[in-house]
């Protein structure tokens, strides 16, 4: 059990990342593709937080525990992930805005039917 657990979080992150990439490449709907990209990004959160986890650690917040009484998990990756989540949400919003405009100008959101920019 424990030896599996030693890599399982990383493998879940890798799986999520690959699944997102697959969805993005084979998507037939740009909105769905944007959703897949968001899924891809969740994988980066998992990897970051998994890297910072510490067995028996508690959250790095000292308002209710005495400093030094218990080990805490890595706060740096949590800060990075927080930043990452904001970035992800804004990128998603921007991509969706572009998709809405594509729907208006091309009348479709199927990438197979967008045939303007070639060669």
């Amino acid at each position: 059990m424990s030896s599996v657990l030693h890599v399982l979080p990383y493998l879940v992150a890798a799986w999520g990342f690959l699944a997102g990439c697959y969805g993005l490449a084979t998507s037939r709907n740009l909105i769905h593709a944007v959703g897949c990209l968001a899924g891809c990004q969740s994988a980066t959160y998992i990897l970051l937080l998994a890297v910072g986890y510490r067995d028996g650690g508690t959250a790095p917040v000292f308002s209710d525990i005495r400093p030094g009484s218990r080990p805490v998990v890595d706060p740096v990756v949590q800060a990075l992930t927080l930043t990452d989540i904001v970035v992800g949400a804004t990128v998603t919003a921007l991509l969706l805005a572009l998709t809405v405009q594509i729907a208006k100008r091309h009348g479709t959101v199927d990438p197979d039917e967008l045939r303007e920019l070639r060669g």
Partner: protein
Amino acid sequence: MHHLLPLLPAIPLLVAAVLVAGGRRLPRPAAESLASLTAAATAALAVFLLLHSSPPLVEWVGGWFPRHGESVGIVLLGDGASLGMAALVSLLTLAALAYSWHYFDEPPRGHAGSYPAMMLLFQGGMCGFALAGDLFNAFVFFELMGVVAYALTGYRIDEAKAVQGALSFALVNSLGAYFMLMGIALLYARTGELAMAKIGQGLDRAAGHHGPDVLVLAGFALFLTGLLVKAAAVPFQFWLPDAHAVAPTPVCMLLSGVMVELGVYGVWRVHGLVFAGPGGVPAADATRVLVVLGVLTAAVGSVMCWYQRHIKRLLAFSTISHTGLFLLGIGVLRPEGDVGTALYVLGHAGVKAALFACAGVLLDRYGTVDEFQLHGRARRLRGVGVLFAVGALALAGLPPFATGLGKAVSEEAVGGPLTVVYVLASALTGGAVLRVAARVFLGLGRRPAAEDGQEREEDKTSGGSEEPETRQRLTGVPATMRTVPAVLLAAALLAGAVPGFAEAAGHAVEESGSPGVFSSAHWTASGVLLDLLSTLLAAVLAGVAVARPGLLSAPGWALPLRRLQSGHVGDYVAWLLLGTALLGALALPGVLG
């Protein structure tokens, strides 16, 4: 002095916020002057710091200077290379803002400040990326310049092509950024650090005598994927022509002139600080990766460039081709290569931005950037025609332009058969632009038929049916739109011709780059000869193409290459995955050995 480093990104960002807050009240000229002033002030600050960057400046933001060699803060690097890039970014932003003085139809209602504000945000993002000495901080600014660039590319929402190109750009680049972040997480797990130099040391310590392992390889491949997507190296390059062909011209000047080059700069920086040590990627493998990709990129870019008829798209492919040459230059991991590439990037920025600026004038005057439709129509624009032709020759490496000097120094650095790549790529791209100049501005040759033999219409993007970007057909070409390309070309010329500039630039880059002693960058007889050779070749190619179009029309083998550029974002993602796997495979021997 070093406390001023964070101001390079912060000042443009602050003024951008102020412009948005006050944009409702400010008249448009006031907003644009404020933005130009800010870009100029940042450029002045960057140049000032650059002159004081020996020894290199280091700033820990928030005053978190390391104690006992360890810090919890973010480090900014102010050496010759990073400050040089920041100065280039700021100057080019200034040029783009000046160029767009009379540009664009009505700004979005009640948002007069939004376009200049976005340009400033873009500038701030690029400056921040150039200075970053911390991997995660680099990712943040990488995303910032990305996000603003996507929005700027899709700025003309009335145009179907613009929004499509912007979305391809945004999807592929965002995915690339997430690859980068995965790489950062892996490297953080191994070393427990985020500052680039500390990660490098951590990798060396962890590797001990065994050399790098597959974790380092994965970190290398993932991180480089993000940077190479931005740098538009093959096979990550597909988004670039789609985006550059449709973005507003002033934005193209920035995208092609400096944003793409920042990707190359990032590769150089990260390799030098993180992966160059014994625990990183062995030099032979790094060279293999960069040289293989560089040659492929230069080849694909120049061939595709030759067969374009959409002028902005043609220029975009020539950027890809030159990116390949830059990768080649830094790939040999020698100080001469670094210095040559730096000069090449400087010259290329001026020349390419000037060419885009001229294309923008065509788009404004005639509502099209299609080479065939424009045949002979721009005879009256003599001044612009001269600038365009000079730009074409400079692109091919005509001495004493900085492009020629950079090319000559890089050629010397790579040596041997790779020199041929430089000559051919610059001749093909320069020749293609020269051909456009001859047809459009002089009306030489017979008017090309719309149908071109075996090519099907759906296999190519024509430049017709573009909407002009300006308010109304301006009665004359505004002075700013003519002056900016002239100034840019003059700058590229001076950078190569003024004695002492190249030496100074070389010294600045040398101090921050690959270890090794390098005398200085200067013109050599062989360099001048090779430059003249590629310029001559470009002229011959253009002449043949104009006089005997049949001889150089697309052969059968070029067609599949063009079909790969399918405009389908799923294809681009598939290529991106393959590219990452390729990066891993190319660097694999170093890990196994």
